[in-house]
């Protein structure tokens, strides 16, 4: 006799959500496993603190479980979870218990050893990236957030709008203004 156990990790998001909505915490655990990385990254991009991001991610998943009855089966899960995570993280930004924030760092700050580029070119590229990140850091929170969602987290305009709770048109205009302010931070008046 073959007894085949149910493999939750083979189930599609919709089926996991359907089970989790009925209180199946095993199914929900699978959802957490599946999305803990993007949720944590979103929280980290907003809080820039590992400890805050971990707490925000955990709180976001707990809140999302409580909000599951309002989640429509078939709707995309990732932006919904990220929206909750970003809200949790923003709340933490305003919290008095906030921990020291780190600066975001790009791996390319360290030139790869097998790089085809000359050491000078790699150094220059690394410097540009550092300057750009530093300029993003100097922006006000809303500008930083919309840039982080769209480019750092790799969300489409539609997803970014959903995560930030804005209409798509609002997202476009705010993103455009944030980019203009970033250019001005960089001393780039003209479009690059």
């Amino acid at each position: 006799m073959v007894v085949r156990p149910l493999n939750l990790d083979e189930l599609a998001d919709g089926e996991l959500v359907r089970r989790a909505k009925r209180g199946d915490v095993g199914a929900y655990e699978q959802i957490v496993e599946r999305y803990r990385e993007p949720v944590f990254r979103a929280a980290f991009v907003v809080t820039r603190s590992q400890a805050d991001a971990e707490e925000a991610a955990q709180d976001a998943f707990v809140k999302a479980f409580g909000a599951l009855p309002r989640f429509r089966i078939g709707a995309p899960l990732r932006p919904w979870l990220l929206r909750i995570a970003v809200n949790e993280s923003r709340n933490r930004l305003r919290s008095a218990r906030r921990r020291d924030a780190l600066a975001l760092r790009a791996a390319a700050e360290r030139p790869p050893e097998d790089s085809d580029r000359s050491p000078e070119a790699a150094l220059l590229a690394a410097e540009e990236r550092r300057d750009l990140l530093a300029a993003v850091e100097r922006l006000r929170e809303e500008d930083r957030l919309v840039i982080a969602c769209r480019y750092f987290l790799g969300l489409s305009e539609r997803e970014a709008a959903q995560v930030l709770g804005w209409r798509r048109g609002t997202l476009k205009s705010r993103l455009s203004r944030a980019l203009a302010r970033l250019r001005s931070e960089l001393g780039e008046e003209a479009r690059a």
Partner: protein
Amino acid sequence: MTGLERRLEAIGRELEYPRAPDIAGAVIERVRVQPVRRLPARRTVTVAIALLLLAAGAAFAAAPGVRHRVLDFLGLRSVHVERVEKLPALPPGRAGANLGLGTRTTLAGARAHAGFPMLVPALRPDEVYLAGAPVGNRVMLVYAPRPDLPRAPHTQTGMLVTEFRGEQPPGFLDKTLGRGTTARPVAVNGDPGAWIAGRPHEIVYVRPDGTVITDTLRLAGNTLIWRHGDVLVRLEAEVPLATALRIARSMR
């Protein structure tokens, strides 16, 4: 896309993130004791009771988050009651193939493969199932509805008997009870047990590694649950306690 946007995207791909922490265990522990839905505006206080039938003390230690909430309620050595603010959302009951009972077999097949001495009522089951998950080997005896075993609204069966070894690999069996459900200690042929009656409740297993698994796809109605040796037996039927006890005591 402008050059600036392309540069931002390139940076996004190379951002250094700390390793995403393993938060699933902590999240699940918290959702187990948190309400799924907000309390209604009228502030009717719903006190839910979860009956934790501990199969192994060590397993209970695997879920420290609920330990402080557990009250020694029924006075049975291995039975505890957990009060939670609100029950998780209850699944709609489904019948037949959707019960997720496992693989269909025969009584002889179940006896041969269960890996524990299973008990069978004097009344022979209509269907027998064996499942390897989620709590190790689990045998289910299914009875079609009949005059003395009315159709249960949630399982569409007359009676369901579930048996599995309590010590390994399952941790404990946890029954989450809502308002209108009562639990009282009973003895079945001298074995400790409990009778849970009233409104439907859900059944949750917690494995020794702390993984919590809800017995999906169905709700339990009136339930007699007891331990015979290291085997946990659960008898579900929409019958009075006396009938459930009579059937349980006939099990050999």
